[in-house]
């Protein structure tokens, strides 16, 4: 670096911090302080009415007990994992599918794109009302449409079924339940992912496909060996962001489950359980401990994804 550059690096010192000051204040007040406070409170009994009282690891012990015994917390962990593990891969697959379908030059492409994207701009409150009605077990349109294909009525938001869990297949709990309904809702909002994949597909050089065709690769092999590797950075991005978002899903969960995780706790996600523990039961310490466990789980999962990404994510320009 030239010495002149060194000087200019310093020239805006105070001005730089001054311009950045809104964020600095926000970072200290809304992130650093809350993280410190919630870490401390997670070792306290704190009901807002009296000052926090230090109780050591009591909250964490209670959480691990509930996890092992299948209490509310254990149920919430299972529900959250189920929702994330089912909805994220399906959303990615559907997003890629739609983007590939729309990648050809066909008439009405813009119209199709709008139709697929439109659900993502509908406010979540409205989406939840809409799907509560469409998925009503008695009079909902979806069960009606399923009956045309001979599918028996499903309980959706009113049921505890977990259709994606193989152990339930063929049993009472094998039908579509409340979490499956939430997954369906999330799939309806797949337009964001689709748009990102469309942009990424547009960036793949045409010459790669031509070269693959010359080498005798059919459409399936071109997809497997050209499209997928070149999309892998975006898939990875959506995997990480999708996981973080699905774990944080709150509004739709709150609305469809009557704000309580109904029925029978089948829709009780971690974020809802945490909210209810804090603001309904006034167990701030217990809720803070739960928040930290959730944070650590998310960090670990992100780190694991980053580690595995070395083996399957291909960045163009490397190698």
């Amino acid at each position, binding site marked *: 670096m030239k010495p002149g550059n060194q000087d200019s*690096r*310093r*020239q*805006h010192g*105070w001005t*730089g*911090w*001054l*311009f*950045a000051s*809104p*964020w600095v*204040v926000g*970072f200290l*007040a*809304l992130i650093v302080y*809350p*993280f410190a406070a*919630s870490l401390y*409170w997670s070792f306290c009994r704190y009901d*807002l009415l009296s000052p926090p009282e230090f109780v050591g690891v009591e909250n964490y012990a209670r959480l691990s007990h509930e996890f092992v015994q299948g209490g509310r917390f254990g149920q919430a962990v299972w529900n959250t994992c189920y929702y994330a593990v089912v909805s994220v891969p399906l959303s990615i697959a559907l997003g890629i599918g*739609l983007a590939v*379908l*729309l990648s050809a030059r*066909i008439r009405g492409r813009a119209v*199709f794109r*709008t*139709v697929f994207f*439109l659900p993502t*701009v*509908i*406010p979540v*409150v*409205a989406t939840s*009302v*809409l799907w509560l*009605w469409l998925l009503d077990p008695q*009079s909902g*349109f979806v069960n*009606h449409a399923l009956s045309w294909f001979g599918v028996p009525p499903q309980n959706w938001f009113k049921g505890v079924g977990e259709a994606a869990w193989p152990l339930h297949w063929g049993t009472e709990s094998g039908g579509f339940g409340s979490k499956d309904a939430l997954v369906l809702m999330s799939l309806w909002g797949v337009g964001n992912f689709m*748009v*990102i994949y469309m*942009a*990424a597909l547009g960036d793949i050089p045409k010459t790669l496909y031509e070269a693959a065709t010359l080498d005798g690769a059919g459409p399936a092999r071109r997809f497997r060996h050209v499209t997928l590797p070149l999309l892998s950075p975006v898939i990875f991005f959506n995997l990480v962001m999708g996981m973080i978002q699905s*774990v944080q899903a*709150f*509004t739709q969960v*709150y*609305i469809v489950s009557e704000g309580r995780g109904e029925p029978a706790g089948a829709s009780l996600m*971690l974020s809802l359980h*945490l*909210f209810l523990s*804090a*603001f309904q039961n006034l167990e*701030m310490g217990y809720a*803070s401990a739960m*928040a*930290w466990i*959730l*944070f650590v789980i998310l960090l670990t999962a992100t780190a694991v994804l980053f580690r595995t990404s070395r083996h399957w994510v291909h960045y163009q320009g490397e190698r």
Partner: protein
Amino acid sequence: MRRCLLFLTALLFAIPLILMVSSSLKPADQLATDPYSIWPDSFAWSNYAEALRALPFLRYLRNSLVLCLGSVLGTVSSCSLVAYSLARLKWRGRDVVFAVIIGTMLLPWHVTMIPRFLLLRELGLYNSLAALIAPTFLGDAFFIFLLRQFFRTIPEELSEAARLDGLSEWGIFWRIVLPLSKPALFTVALFQFIASWNDFSGPLLYLSDPHQFPLAYGLERFISSYSDQTHLLLAAATMFTLPIVILFFLTQRTFIQGIAATGLK
């Protein structure tokens, strides 16, 4: 084959919305006896009038607009300042600050929720829209990132020339960089407007007085008390959704480019 598949999928995606709008116009008795037909027997616009009367729609709308416009003002002003600092000024620690900002995007809200709530309550903001607006004046990581990327594309020579002419940094920011960044500022304003319009958990946490409720939250309260009046629910949900859909159609390009850009950086 591809067209056929596309058409079928598009139909699946469109049906919920079509049903929502068409059923919101069905007379209540038709909705009860014949819920599956697409076309209303007669257009019951009275559903809308009734929904408007059943919930204080205009007051909720006013609150929503205060919330949205206040948040847009807060986000655009704070994020553009911070982004300018990161993109156009050279100072020690800048790169660290930028990395930290990016890192905060991955933090879940769960950990900060309780202390943040108690802090804002301490400041006397509980049960006031200000609790939802004030934090937007302290920047948002995602929007700062978006604006920074845009500011970096403005030629540095413009700033250098202005500096030689004796313009202060504030002058360069205000008179040169901001006017050139209208598209990016518009994208940020649009996304923040929609986020505030849709926000449900914020009002749920901070507002208890129905006079303060914005539409998203007021509508949910309405749902829980009118759950058997489907025609009114659908009319209210349609009215709540319509402004956003219109906004989307007016700004579709900005919208979709904005989303696509987030995934490719």
